[in-house]
């Protein structure tokens, strides 16, 4: 069934199709419609779930963790300040191996107060042990929530499904809503091997000495290393049923490309237009949209960029005192590999400033004029 819906509602539909059993959430602009629609769905019975209307995001994640360890499929959504407030509990969810799935609307961190998009909120949570999927369309949001539960529950690792504030959260698009029976076949009920129950009384997360702690984290990393293959496998399985592949990366005209943009989120679709126009002008351009950031898709990034002569990473974020974060990670992925292209780093679109086709053309003009990246950050559109 096709429906026109906003990105936020795509998260709600994804959560409903996945048959989330417990939702605990707190409102924050620009996430509010996610929880409003889920409240409606719980109230009208179209979703058989308990919605806990908590008093903070910190409590939202704590409640999700409690529900998850009790054996329920658990969903929440937040943004920016709310995500930052959850920070402690993000470590708790991954360290405790609770496969919560959360929508995060990329919003810039205050101060100054901003409700508009950039990625510093979610990328600040890079090292919390959560998988991170960056979406570029409302269709991808619905599909990814369903896939994320499947992958997370198989590995017992939580996941964030991330979309740009307003550029996607409030943009209406046609979404092919998957059939519930098909989703049920794709995503069976959550049945964890161990859960919190008096039938099998265990202590979860107790004091863990240096004899055991490291092994717990080793296992988390080893399971995270299984995620890229599992995301691709479940993505292909999804394609068989629903006709849409959900991969780690989304390359566009990269096969013969000499110059490749590396992008994420909605900017990844704008970049496609720039690629087409650059090609009309004789530049063999391509775009590598990073769908999954954690686990980092090392092999796919090397495979795609290894064929190019130049790569230009456009970051909607900054690691202050270092560089754009995708830029750092892409460089790190290519370092020491034979035949890799020089990587140029650009920062654009902070605080919701538009990243336009012209922004990408400016990036291309800069990168194509140079043989090597002599600056770590080139700022696009700064008015200073």
């Amino acid at each position: 069934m096709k429906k026109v819906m906003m990105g936020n509602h795509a998260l709600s539909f994804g959560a409903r199709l996945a048959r989330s059993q417990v939702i605990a959430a707190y409102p924050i602009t620009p996430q509010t419609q996610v929880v409003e629609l889920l409240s409606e769905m719980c109230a009208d019975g179209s979703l058989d779930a308990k919605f806990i209307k908590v008093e903070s995001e910190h409590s939202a994640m704590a409640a999700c963790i409690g529900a998850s360890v009790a054996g329920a499929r658990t969903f929440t959504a937040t943004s920016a300040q709310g995500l930052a407030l959850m920070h402690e509990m993000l470590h708790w969810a991954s360290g405790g191996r609770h496969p919560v799935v959360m929508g995060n609307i990329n919003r810039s961190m205050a101060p100054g107060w901003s409700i508009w998009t950039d990625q510093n909120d979610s990328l600040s949570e890079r090292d919390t042990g959560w998988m991170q999927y960056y979406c570029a369309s409302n269709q991808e949001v619905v599909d990814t929530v369903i896939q994320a539960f499947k992958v997370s529950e198989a590995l017992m690792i939580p996941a964030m499904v991330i979309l740009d504030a307003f550029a996607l959260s409030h943009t209406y698009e046609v979404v092919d809503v998957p059939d519930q029976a098909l989703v049920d076949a794709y995503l069976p009920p959550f049945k964890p091997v161990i859960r919190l129950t008096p039938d099998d009384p265990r202590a979860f997360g107790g004091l863990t000495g240096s004899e055991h702690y490291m092994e717990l984290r080793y296992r988390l990393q080893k399971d995270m290393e299984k995620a890229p293959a599992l995301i691709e496998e479940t993505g292909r399985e999804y394609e068989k049923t629903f006709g849409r592949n959900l991969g780690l990366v989304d390359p566009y005209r990269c096969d013969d490309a000499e110059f490749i943009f590396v992008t994420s989120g909605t900017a990844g679709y704008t970049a496609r237009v720039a690629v087409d126009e650059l090609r009309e002008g004789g530049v063999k351009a391509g775009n590598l949209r990073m769908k999954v950031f954690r686990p980092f898709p090392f092999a796919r990034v090397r495979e795609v960029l290894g064929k190019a002569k130049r790569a230009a990473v456009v970051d909607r974020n900054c690691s202050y005192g270092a560089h754009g974060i995708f830029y750092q990670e892409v460089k790190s992925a290519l370092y020491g590999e034979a035949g890799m292209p020089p990587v140029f780093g650009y920062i654009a679109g902070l605080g919701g400033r538009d990243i336009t086709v012209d922004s990408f053309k400016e990036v291309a003009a800069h990168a194509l004029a140079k043989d090597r990246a002599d600056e770590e950050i080139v700022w696009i559109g700064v008015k200073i």
Partner: protein
Amino acid sequence: MSTETKKPKKMTLTIPADEAMACGHLACQGCGATLAMRYMLKALGQRTALCIPACCWAVIDGPYPYSALDVPIYHCAFETAASTATGVKAGLEMVGDKETTVVAWAGDGGTFDIGLQALSGAAERDEDIIYVCYDNEAYMNTGIQRSSATPYGAWTTTTPVKHFKNRPKKDIVAIMAAHRIPYIATASVSHPEDFVKKMKKAKGIKGTRFFHVFAPCPTGWKSRPEDSIKLARMAVQNAYFPLFEIEGGETYTINLKLKDKKPIDDYIRIQGRFRHLKGEQIASVQAEVDARWERLLKLAG
């Protein structure tokens, strides 16, 4: 010698014999919090799930992979006892377990201070959980730092004798009463029959139930381990920690009426944490205890 024998007076044991706590725990000698757990589990039984944040009990049940308890425990973040328990209850119900009693079990720091927001949220929503605060009147697990449950006059490592705590203990029970939750009770390890009776009563009530349990701490109070029960009993008898219930946030019942309310002096004198207090300071503690008792008597009608 008369053949007539007097019928012996029979004492009925009201405390269940079942144990859900084993002896191999890590508590200090004379720990009130440990007894409190034992009595609570006797009252609630094995179909109980605990959420324990950072507090002494985060350690007492034993390090991974051990547990001294025969009930499941989720060790949660410091400020999340109430919110985690809320999630556990919701999760258990969604997987078909409507029977298990879910308990948030936190110390005074995790309740009066860092966990107050989550507790208030859960109480306002009337989540179907029992929240137990075992109150040893300071951050004991981190080494005796003052909390907002620390009483006036007490020494702690962050309120040294020269700057002892000069503000009264926060009235957590009044805060919880203001939430109009169905059931609130105070309890003490010196009065296990009363504790178990009220905990059993709470088990049968739906909604948020709050227990404030007095839990002496010889390590932090600089008292003798063998005096823990004595101190707890004194605190009940001198009205420092009276035993009462509040139903619906309105109806107060004093469980142990004090015909002969004892002065505070003896209680103060056997605790090293109050050693520096002078006569007039002890008198001001007495005045505060008296005022609170009078207020409670009025509330209980």
